[in-house]
């Protein structure tokens, strides 16, 4: 089509519409509010419903129920709202609800700096709710990726029947850049597997743990059940330890065993490099500048950008470590994802964090200094 000058939040809304999102509920919060505004305009145009809820808890309640009634649902918030989403995220997990949750991160904790950027919710997203079951989270670095990864988040939500997080930040959400959305290649749209009419419907299937069961929408051809409690395959409360373990094994396996399929990374490798920069989100753009600069100074250096943060794209990370002796992990937090890299790095490989949480971007110079180039 052509270029536009868009902010990331609009790209998220457009990505959602491209994925045929037809339900949105949200509560205003800086810097995520404009997603609510865009969706209030875009969703009713396709016959869907978008509503400003009374609070974040209601936003999630509306979305979970609408998703189980067959809608493709999305909500968007920032850190303080994520705290209020927490309990309902667990509900969406235990009920196997396809749902996209956008977190436009801002400086926390608490109210923090409402209009300032940060990427401090990385481990919070992983452990967002009680029980500690695996989650899927994607992290865009550009306005174009905000569009693409939101679209992909819907596909993953439908495919794995689970809430999927889009972890962006003020620095992408309300930063504008030139982008041609139509030039972005997208995979085919994925719709949830639906239980066929006439066949007995069980809302959950634990038999082969990694298999994702077909769903029957509320109001459709079957009688549907949904529960927040530990349950059997029919969604009836159970207290039998063996059944409960089957349920947990299923919720764990369906995401963990699919980690390689969910993994999205971008590689910029150089032969003979002994240093690797691993980054994600807005900070990966500072890393790109730093890598170019280091190469211009004659260094050999590789870069790995993680678009999937959860589940950890472990295979892709380990594959990138061949010959690497030093890993630099810049993050706009005090070193949250470095924990995951340290877990995967062989003994003897130095993992160096570049960490700042003062609302300003990590600069290329700060990364170059950590690598010893400055």
């Amino acid at each position, binding site marked *: *089509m*052509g*270029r*536009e*000058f868009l902010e990331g939040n609009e790209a998220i809304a457009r990505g959602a519409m491209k994925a045929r999102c037809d339900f949105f*509920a949200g509560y205003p919060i800086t810097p995520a509010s404009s997603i609510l505004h865009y969706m209030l*305009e*875009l969703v*009713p*145009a396709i016959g869907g*419903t978008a*509503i400003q*809820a*009374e*609070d974040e*808890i*209601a936003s*999630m*309640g*509306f*979305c*979970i*129920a*609408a998703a*189980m*009634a*067959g*809608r493709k649902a999305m909500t968007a918030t920032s850190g303080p709202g994520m705290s209020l989403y927490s309990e*309902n995220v667990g*509900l969406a997990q235990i009920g196997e609800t396809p749902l996209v949750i956008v977190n436009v991160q801002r400086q926390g904790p608490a109210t923090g700096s*409402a*209009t300032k950027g940060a990427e401090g919710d990385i481990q919070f997203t992983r452990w967002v709710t009680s029980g500690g079951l695996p989650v899927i989270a994607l992290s865009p670095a550009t306005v174009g990726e905000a569009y693409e990864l939101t679209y992909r988040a819907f596909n993953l939500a439908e495919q794995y029947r689970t809430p999927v997080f889009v972890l962006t930040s003020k*620095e992408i959400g309300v*930063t*504008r*850049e*030139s982008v041609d959305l139509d030039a972005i290649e997208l995979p085919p749209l994925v719709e949830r597997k639906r239980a066929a009419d006439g066949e007995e419907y069980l809302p959950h299937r634990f038999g082969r743990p990694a298999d994702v069961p077909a769903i029957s929408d*509320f*109001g*459709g*051809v*079957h*009688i*549907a*059940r*949904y*529960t*927040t*409690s530990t349950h059997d395959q029919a*969604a*009836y*409360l159970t207290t039998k330890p063996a059944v409960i373990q089957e349920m947990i094994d299923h919720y764990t396996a369906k995401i963990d065993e699919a980690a390689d399929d969910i993994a999205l990374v971008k590689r910029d490798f150089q032969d003979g490099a002994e240093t690797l920069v691993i980054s994600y989100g*807005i900070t990966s*753009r*500072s890393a790109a*500048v730093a890598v170019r600069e280091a190469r211009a100074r004659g260094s050999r250096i590789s870069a790995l950008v993680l678009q999937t943060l959860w589940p950890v794209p472990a295979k892709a990370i380990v594959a990138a470590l061949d010959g690497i002796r030093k890993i630099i992990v810049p993050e706009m937090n005090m070193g949250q994802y470095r924990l995951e890299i340290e877990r995967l790095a062989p003994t003897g490989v130095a993992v160096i964090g570049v960490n700042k949480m003062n609302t*300003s971007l990590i*600069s*290329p*110079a700060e990364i170059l200094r950590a690598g010893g180039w400055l």
Partner: protein
Amino acid sequence: MTDKIGPLPFCPGCGHHVVTKALDKALVKLQLDPRKVVIVTDIGCIGLADRYFTTNAFHGLHGRSVTYACGLKLARPELTVIALKGDGGCGIGGTHVLNVARRNIGITLIVANNFNYGMTGGQHSVTTPSDGITSTTPWGNVEGPMDLCGTAIAAGAAWAARCTMFDKDLADVIAQAIAQPGFALLDVWELCTAYYAPRNKIKKKELDDLLERYGLRLGVLADTPRPEYSARYRAAYAAGRPVIQRRPTIEVQYGNSVERQTGIVIAGSAGQKIRSTATLFAQAALFSGLDATQKDDYPITVMTGHSLSELIFSRQRIDYTAIESPDYLLVISEDGLRSTRERIQRLPNTCTVYAEQSLDLPATKARVVRCPIAQAATETSRQATAVIAVAALLQDTGLFPLDALARAISTFQSAKIAEVNLKALQAGAALVSGQTGFREP
């Protein structure tokens, strides 16, 4: 209902037996397709009821049944959605009760109100009468009870009724509630035979005494139908302004003289249209074949304080969006100066500052161009202050033609605002006697 699940799980004599069976009777009376009915529950003893029904069932978080019920109804307005909740749930989820009443989303809410938390050990709730003995009010409740119907009616409930578990017509009243097109609240007063009733020696007569004590009556207390939310939503959307058409895309139409990545900071006050002007400036850059980023900084206040936009123009893809040292800095107000004063002091001599001439700039190595921006704005429009400043910069630097900015203004702004801004563009360009030398695309 089905008996396959076994007997109801409630204590002997508990009012939940009565409410559950009355709901079943009402559903049978209404002859609804069970696939089109959803019983929504949350936490509390009454939350165990949904599994005994052959309809759809949704069992959610404590106090949030109304949110799921609303989500189902918004998603599929053709469904009959009935939420069952305890008085405890009305405490933790009180805001949802107020808001569903206010919005008039067509769900039915039945509150099994037994004045305490039966599931967690008989603690007091928002409906525990004053002086009531509970496990958390051992010396008598010093709080007052909430009148659920009165509260919901005050919030706008179209239909509300109060019953007790002893009412012979309970099933009929439930059926009447379900038949309402809008929101309907039914507050059913019950005995909790495990905790509240024995502790407070309450039976049927004492329930009636409580009504009298609080001056409350039974029966339908509000019946003022108005259009249901989803119907209003569709109607308002259909009658409203058409959806914004997709914004025009930008084709390259002009040349530029930007040889290397160029950083521009525009610093002014909230209300001076700093950010929207920066967007126009960047769109003009796109019309001139450049890539651009715009990163803004502003406080949480709206019409006061500073507003600052950082623009980067480049012929290559821009990665790092912050500007360490700008090539051009526009300062157009005191707020803008305050937010950039330290930065101005550090600027190298390669930077040019375009400043409103009345501002008292700190010492700097940068080249300073003073312009009567505010004066020009009083002659056009204060809202166009930033456009005037940007036009002055463009005229002086020749980064790309003023025509590109004019093009952005007329493409992306409404005719009325564009007219003002095109005048402002001329006024700004007249402030400096620059020379231009563009390459054509």
